[in-house]
């Protein structure tokens, strides 16, 4: 059977530094798969490789069994592989309405329309409304994104990815920097995704990881260290050691 997302021996070198080292990762369809590891383990690099921001030095990337290693980033989105960013990557000068409009138009094949006035396709507008509603962004849809409160920007970051209607969603620390009381709002929107959407996410908050994931991969120094169910990983002494300090792994 084919996996939703699979890497085969993917490596990435920046000069002499090896940011990803022969990573072979399999993500099951419909999984809630967490990617954890200490800072600098190469988690974000892996996301960049999966989404086509970076090209691997070696190895293959398969989406639903199809080789996408050489595919441009925007084409992968068209195939349903969508991501969010650890640090918000939004369009500061546009409004949330326009931002979501961009993603919806693109998905519905209307993004390149140059003769139509924006907003003149009802089907697009209805989907925009649906996303704005779901992410509680209606009341700020007319504001400039740059001046929105951080929590709203974070919601927009996630909403923008969902607006692309992903089959495989890659979340790079979705709740990063969000105050405790606003976190559940963001996570609720992720948890509410249909079960057939595959989610691969990076997260440092272990409570979140263990409550949300059904599979965990641990990355250390660019290489896959271990993998298993939340139970297995939580019992693994070596993983604890990795988080406490490299020295103790030897014991």
């Amino acid at each position, binding site marked *: 059977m084919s996996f939703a997302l699979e890497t085969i021996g993917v490596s990435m070198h920046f000069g002499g530094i090896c940011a990803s080292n022969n990573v072979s990762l399999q993500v099951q369809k419909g999984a809630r798969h967490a990617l954890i590891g200490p800072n600098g383990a190469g988690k974000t690099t892996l996301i960049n490789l999966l989404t086509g921001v970076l090209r691997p030095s070696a190895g293959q990337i398969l989406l639903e069994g199809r080789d996408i290693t050489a595919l441009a980033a925007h084409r992968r989105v068209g195939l349903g592989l969508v991501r969010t960013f650890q640090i918000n990557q939004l369009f*500061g000068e546009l409004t949330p*309405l*326009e931002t979501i409009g*961009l993603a919806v138009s693109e998905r519905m094949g*209307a993004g390149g329309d*140059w003769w139509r006035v*924006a*907003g003149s396709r009802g089907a697009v507008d*209805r989907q925009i409304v649906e996303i704005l509603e779901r992410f509680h962004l209606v009341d700020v849809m007319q504001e400039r994104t740059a001046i929105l409160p951080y929590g709203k920007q974070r919601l927009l970051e996630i909403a923008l990815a969902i607006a692309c209607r992903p089959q495989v969603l890659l979340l790079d620390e979705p709740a990063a920097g969000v105050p405790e009381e606003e976190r559940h709002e963001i996570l609720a929107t992720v948890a509410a995704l249909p079960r057939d959407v595959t989610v691969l996410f990076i997260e440092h908050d272990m409570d979140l990881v263990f409550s949300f994931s059904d599979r965990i991969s641990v990355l250390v120094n660019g290489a896959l260290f271990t993998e298993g169910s939340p139970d297995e990983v939580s019992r693994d002494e070596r993983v604890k050691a990795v988080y406490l300090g490299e020295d103790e792994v030897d014991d």
Partner: protein
Amino acid sequence: MSGAAMQDLTAQVAYHLARRARWRGLEYVFWAAALASVFFLPAKHLILNEIAILALFALSLDLLIGYAGIISLGHAAYFGFGAYAAGLIAKHGLIGEPVLALLVTGLVVALLGFITSFLVLRGSDLTRIMITLGFSLILREVANRFAGLTGGADGLQGVTMAPLLGQFTFDIGGHVAYMYSLTVLFVMFLVARRIVYSPFGLSLRAVQGNALRAAAIGIGVNWRLVAIYTIAAAYAGIAGALLTQSTQFCSLDVFSFERSADLFVVLVLGGVGYLYGGLVGAVLFKITQDWLAGLTPQYWQFWVGLTLVIIVLVGTERLSGWLRAIRRLAFKGQG
């Protein structure tokens, strides 16, 4: 949420998305003034014709800089190519009717823009500046070398224009020329306006704002840039063609670096990213140039230079800030 509320919200979304595309009061004033100049300033039609052509050329660069963030220091390449193409078409009688010749020239220059876009769009800003500059210099030298075809340094002689639409003969006072250029400018402006407020135009602003994220929501960044570069090249080419058609002459100076550089002055004067910058800038630039040249024929460039330094020091931000304030005042009550 009830169906009615949903419908209401959808209508709001449509309304707000189209907000930027709605005509503002000051826009009507601008075009009414342009139309009035046809009737009330017949003695100025020659310079007004130059202004209209410069405005179209500047509009073309504004599409690149203001909407896609592509900086070109050799935009005269396409202006010049269009100028020579229109000249050669007329001289050899390939297409008699000027409007049709203009359209064909636009298509030819669009093709040139499309091909060269792949070179230009590869690099960063600095690379782009160098490549565009180099390309315009190359074209100038090519036109210089192929003197048999282009007349070389003497310019393209013997261009005679057939009557416009088979009806209106180009006159020495530039009356027909101005009405022609102004009409073309207006039509091209309408098209540009349509483009920048479309979903495609919105995606350009997204690409300019954050290309990484634009790609991450499925926008083919490179193709969007190729498209706008091609469109901008066609605009520049049509401006060049208008110059040749209305003066019935064309020389190497259409490719000159000064022509590309002047365009920046125009856009600094008028501002970028709201379509009228090139138009307002062209009016200010030509009138200032004309006025200063009258005052001090030898030193007018000194004054242009000084004006520029002052504007940049005072801050273009502030200038456009004033414009915004004026606009806000003018549109009050329009929502």
